[in-house]
Each structure stands twice: as structure tokens, then as C-alpha cells.
């Protein structure tokens, strides 16, 4: 795929980093829609306001998989504020660019991450005000899925 995808895209597609799910995730973000052909799900573990662990699962084309993989690498260990600053453009740049028809795939990754961080923050507020367990998996999962477009 010398022409269509860069070396970096192919590397992340063939050897995706951080695939899977985080045990007892602190935040979950899912964007996309299976009928449109792409769903991206990002799960994060937060420690000291930093992304201690991050995992993704993606249903989509090679560009979608590569951008998911790349974003997990870019933000791992970063503070939430830093992580939130990652734009779609930056992900695409880190991959050495994407073909024009594939640019929308990179939108998914940054959106999924933002959603995961928002989910984490929401849970803290919820648990702060209600005293519920901060890491109530079942509850948070259902919330994440309700956000599905």
C-alpha cells in the first residue's frame, strides 16, 4: 500500500497498540455507528489526573484502526488536559497523513477519547454528589451506550 497509506498507518494497522479493554475503566467513550461502518471505543484508567492506561476497540477500515492505535500511544501518560488537546489533525499528522477520503476516520479517534474523558469527569461528579462507587462498571457502561448516536 505504498500509495494509499503511509508507512506509519500500515504499521499501526498491522501492529495495533493497546487493543482491548481496561479492567475497571474510569472512563469509556464510544463513537460511530455500525451501520455507517465505523465504531470506536476507548477505555481509560486515570491516576493522578493522568492517563495511566488506555485501550481501544475499533470496527472500521485500516485508517480507523490506525488512528485509534495512534491516539492511544499519543496520550498514554499525558494529563487529561493535555490529552484533551489532541486534535484529529494531530492524529492524522502523527500517522504521516491520511488519504483525503479517510480524514473522517481520524475524527473518530479524538472524539472517542474526548468522550472517555468526559465520562470519567461525569462519574466523579456523580460519585462526589451521590457517594456512589466511583468505578461502578455496569452503571458507567450503560451511560456510555446511551450516548450512542
Amino acid at each position: 500500500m505504498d500509495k494509499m497509506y503511509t508507512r506509519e498507518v500500515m504499521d499501526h494497522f498491522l501492529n495495533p497498540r493497546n487493543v482491548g479493554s481496561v479492567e475497571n475503566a474510569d472512563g469509556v467513550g464510544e463513537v460511530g455507528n455500525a451501520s455507517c461502518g465505523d465504531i470506536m471505543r476507548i477505555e481509560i484508567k486515570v491516576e493522578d489526573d493522568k492517563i495511566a492506561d488506555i485501550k481501544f476497540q475499533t470496527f472500521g477500515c485500516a485508517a480507523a484502526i490506525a488512528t485509534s492505535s495512534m491516539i492511544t500511544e499519543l496520550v498514554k501518560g499525558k494529563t487529561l488536559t493535555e490529552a484533551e488537546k489532541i486534535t484529529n489533525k494531530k492524529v492524522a499528522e502523527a500517522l504521516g497523513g491520511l488519504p483525503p477520503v479517510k480524514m473522517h476516520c481520524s475524527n473518530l479517534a479524538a472524539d472517542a477519547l474526548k468522550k472517555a474523558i468526559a465520562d470519567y469527569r461525569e462519574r466523579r461528579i456523580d460519585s462526589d454528589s451521590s457517594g456512589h462507587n466511583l468505578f461502578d462498571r455496569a452503571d458507567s457502561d450503560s451511560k456510555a451506550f446511551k450516548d450512542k448516536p
Partner: protein
Amino acid sequence: MKLVYLDHNATTPVASEVLEAMHPYFREDFYNPSSIYSPAQKVREKVEEARLKVARLLNAEPSEIVFTSGGTEANNQAIIGGARANRKKGNHIITSAIEHHAVLDTCLRLEKEGFEVTVLPVDQYGTVSPESLQKAIKPETVLVSIMYANNEVGTVQDIKTLAHIARQNGSLFHTDAVQAVGKIKVDVKELGIDMLSLSAHKFYGPKGIGCLYIKKGVKVESLLTGGGQENKMRAGTENTPGIIGLGRAAEFILENREEMEKRIRELEELLRQGIKDRIPDVIFTGHPENRVPGCVSVCFKYIEGESMLLLLDQQGIMASSGSACSSKSLKASHVLLAMGITPEIAHGSLRLSLGKDTKREDIEYVLEVLPGVVEKLRAMSPLYRRGDG
């Protein structure tokens, strides 16, 4: 690396006997067949010989064959030329939901010009029912265009019955036989059709050449105007090596198709059974019986086609998928959607199309590689883990 080409519905290599037949017409006998001098007239003879061979393959008359630059041009010419030339009959066109874009988009273009277009639905196997045509057809129907065999799922239509309905109604019947010619027997007289498109590169002929069969007496406007070539039906200096290559490919098919079909159907069965045995959650698409040989169209749940293609490519396997990228999102195949397959599943489509040189080892290699590819992608898929979809 081992290379396995399983994309014969996209294009085929030129057979060595075909390339050999074409060869002299590039440099030695390069003359313009419309020229008057004897060396050019010899080329003219070869062009007419090629026309005869194509006619023979289709059971048509040589004078009914118009050479074009391929299947797309033949389809455009048939639909635009057929509809415009017979507009006094009416302004209604009927086609089907699973046509190639060269037919579908051309019908939609005519819609903008004031024609009314009815797109017939298909059933779960991709079949157009004669009843639906019977219901849709009306006195103003000038043209019906239904493809012979579908390029994605291989389903073959009952063209004879469909054409009969059109004829009873006095409407022209055209069939896009680009995926049928070379794979199954095609007899225009038996089918009772008015026009048929074919493309050489789908059956071991060269790219850039095809033809439109136009039944004697059927009026069709030409698409390209200029020199009076092809009996005024198609202007432009004849692509002589292409035409002679198409003729030779037609002859090759006439001589070898039956034997090829038998061999390819056997390998195809091996591939289907192997996939069934090795991979769970698969859905085979297309008609269970009425299918051209060699087309295995299958959807793997929870994963997406392009990713599959790229992983297969890494291992030297060349195939295709109905799933394609448009600027906004992945687009599922309009053929699979028309067959009622959900978009999620349609996104996971893979088409493996076999050809004359496909070997048993090739199939075995695919059966070795494919399960791992599907598994790898499923392991990444959020749909798979949750078990929905």
C-alpha cells in the same frame, strides 16, 4: 511471497494466446483499417474476423456487433442511445437495484433529462422477479435494462423471462452481460433480447475494448459522433489490437468455457465449504444455485471489508469487498443493501472470485490464511466482544 489472485470479477490477465493474436497489430500491421491500400484492407479483414468470432460466441450476426471501449461505454450507449432513439414510444425506463453503476448512474442521468426511472427491487438472493417487472412495465416503457450476472454476488437473472415481458410490451430489453460472458453460456437469440454489453478484460481479453450487441432493426443513437466507423454506430479510429484480442478471447471462451466452468465450480465448492468449516458467524450472499461459477461472496460479522483486504494483501491474497470509502463514511455495497442485508453485516463483505488459472493450492492457502485474518480483526472489534451485531 506466494501471490494468489482471487479477484477475477475485477479483471483478468490477457490469455497468452490472446496477446499473441494482438501482437502484430501494434507495429507490423498497424494500419488504419479504414484506409484503402491492401495492407490496411488485410487489417480490416482481421477486424471483421474478430467481429465474426464475437458474434459466434453470442449466437448473433456479425453486423449486430458494435465495438466499444469497454463495458461502461456499451452500457452508456445502450441506455442513452436506446432511450433517446425510441423516445416516441415513451419516456419510462426500468432497471434493477443491483445494477453496476455504469447502468444505474446512466439511468439516473436520463432521469435528469426528463425520463422516468423505475428501479426494481431484488429478493434476498439478488433476484429480480418477473412479477415485479410485469407490474412496473407500462405502455410508455421504452427500455428495460437488467443485468445478466451480478458482479458482487454472482446471481444470474432469468433474462429470458424478463426479456419476454419487455417484448410483449414493445419495450427494448438490454442486459449488462459483462459478468456473464466467459462464465456461462450466452445466446442472444435464445434469450430474445435487443441489446447486450460485454467487456473483454473480464474474460482474458484486453482492457479498453468491449462491444454492444444490437439486434438487427433496433434503433439506437450513437454515443460518439465523428468518422463513420462501426457502420456509423461508433466513431473513432478502430482499436485494432483490442478488437482482434477481443475476437481471440471470444474464440478462447467458445472452446474452453465448459471445461473451465466445471473446474472452477469444484474449487469454488472447496472454498465455500472450507470457510464454513473454519470460520463462525459467516453469511454467504448471492443465489444458492443461480450463480456464475467462481464467485464466492461472503460477509464476516463484526468486522470491516477494507481491513480484511489489507491483511489478506499482506499475505499475498488479492480479493475485493463491497465496502468502500466515500468522503463521509464507509459505504456499504448497494447490491448487498438491496438484498436486505443490514449495513453492519454488509460492511464485512469479502468477494473471492476464481478464474481459469486458480489452483487447488491457492484455495488451500486462502483457507489457511483467512481464519487468522478474521480472528485478528474480530479481536479488535467492539461489536464482537459484546456479542451484538
